[in-house]
């Protein structure tokens, strides 16, 4: 059982150059249950990435705490796999070695490591690229490897920080289907940050809408679209209706940001 509890977590960045301190995140509460797929949607600068980094343990909250399976998060760990927006494959390791990085760190013997890595390589459709360097891969392939690398560690929760943000539209759509396919098959707990409304609805069982500075949760919307979902669902009336609603929510926030800029 995985239950992630975010309790009154806030983050204030200290003042610099005489400016007032930046309140990136207001005290926030969120509970994520077992095998939930939660997407966090918000305009840039709403603190959604900050929240994810705090859950990952890469940033410390100014107040509040994050609890995973009853244990407070104090730093990064293998139980929370993360996929970043930037390409973070280790350039000196091949695709297979990248995916096996966490396993090797845990001391899993090489034969077993490779077996697990190869299974994930198949799962993300990279068979034949096991021995390629990251430099030889397209952006989409690199992010697929990064997802496989996080999954190979068998984390309790998968954290994704706009992982498809730098990809072109077609590749992005394919990646969404691939990720959703993995989730539908293997049942994982996922927390997915994005600023793309369609992406948030298509992937999520729940969409958390965040407001602009200071960041806080503005709305929570259940997505009751049936699984398995295919790309065709994006044109159904239910999907369009949800999209319209979220466009309104996000637009007001984006306007607020634009006015302050």
């Amino acid at each position, binding site marked *: 059982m995985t239950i992630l509890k975010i309790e009154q977590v806030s983050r204030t960045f200290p003042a610099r150059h005489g400016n007032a301190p930046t309140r990136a995140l207001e005290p926030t509460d969120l509970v994520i249950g077992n095998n939930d797929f939660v997407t966090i949607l918000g305009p840039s600068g709403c603190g959604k990435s900050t929240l994810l980094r705090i859950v*990952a*343990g*890469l940033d410390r909250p100014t107040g509040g705490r994050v609890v995973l399976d009853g244990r407070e998060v104090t*730093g*990064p*760990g*293998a139980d*929370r*796999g*993360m996929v*970043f927006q*930037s390409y*973070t494959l*280790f*350039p*000196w*390791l091949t695709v297979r070695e990248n995916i096996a*990085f*966490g396993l*090797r*760190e*845990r001391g899993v013997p090489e034969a077993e490591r490779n077996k697990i890595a190869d299974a994930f390589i198949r799962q993300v459709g990279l068979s034949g690229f096991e021995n*390629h*360097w*990251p*430099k*030889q891969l397209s952006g989409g392939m690199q992010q697929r490897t*990064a997802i496989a*690398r*996080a999954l190979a*560690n068998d984390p309790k929760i998968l*954290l994704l920080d706009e992982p498809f943000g730098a990809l072109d539209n077609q590749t992005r759509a394919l990646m969404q289907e691939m990720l959703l396919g993995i989730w539908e098959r293997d049942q994982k707990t996922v927390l997915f940050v994005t600023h793309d409304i369609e992406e948030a609805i298509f992937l999520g069982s729940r969409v958390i809408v965040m407001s602009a500075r200071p960041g806080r949760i503005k709305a929570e919307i259940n997505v009751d679209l049936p699984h398995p979902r295919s790309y065709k669902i994006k044109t159904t009336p239910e999907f369009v209706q949800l999209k319209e609603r979220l466009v309104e929510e996000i637009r007001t926030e984006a306007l607020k940001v634009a006015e302050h800029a």
Partner: protein
Amino acid sequence: MRPLDPVTSRQRVAYGLAFFVVFVALWSWATFGGHVSKVFLANPLTMVQEGVDLIVKQGFLFDIGMTIWRVVGGFVLAAIIAVPFGVLMGAYKPVEAFLEPFVSFARYLPASAFIPLLILWAGIGELQKLLVIFIGSVFQIILMIAVTVGTTRRDLVEAAYTLGASDRGIIRRVLLPSSAPEIAEILRLVLGWAWTYVIVAELIGSSSGIGHMITDSQALLNTGQIIFGIIVIGLIGLMSDFLFKAFNAWLFPWRLA
């Protein structure tokens, strides 16, 4: 010619060689044409004759061997000490805060100024020559490696942490491999500098080596030999550079992929 337009590799070689042709032509014009006195500058032909004479009759190959051994010896000694210190300084900020001011200061101490002291401490034997190279190289390497390791991509370190890497794992499996090509480049660069130190070290209190030959030739006003010695140094430098580059390319295939 347009800005940043590439050249083919054949053109590159041709242009590179063309420079040497132009250089030797100018030199020949100045010397054979009688524009510069023989006392000050030997002509290319004399230089080659003197060079052959040096190698055949005066055992210059032994001098070359001595100089190479001193450079490599002092440089390897410096690298063995400097690389671990540099990595530690780059990885751990308190270590950096502790050592950085001193190393930055020591880096500016000219190695040649230590020669009198080193003669006093270590005599005029091989140890003194090695120490000149060592002092000239060690602080440079430490500082440059510390900077390289310290500027390792943060997102790679963070990714490794989220994959469960320990602090030791971060150093061994992220900081070191990601800095390794840069470290090799730094060593290649500093080896080039070590060549200038070795000649200075050999100018004073030495009975062998390329630098020693150059001082001897100076006493005899044999500019042909001096120029030959300088050219030999240049050629050896070029060769070691080439070998280093080829070795680095072989060691880090992922960079060129």
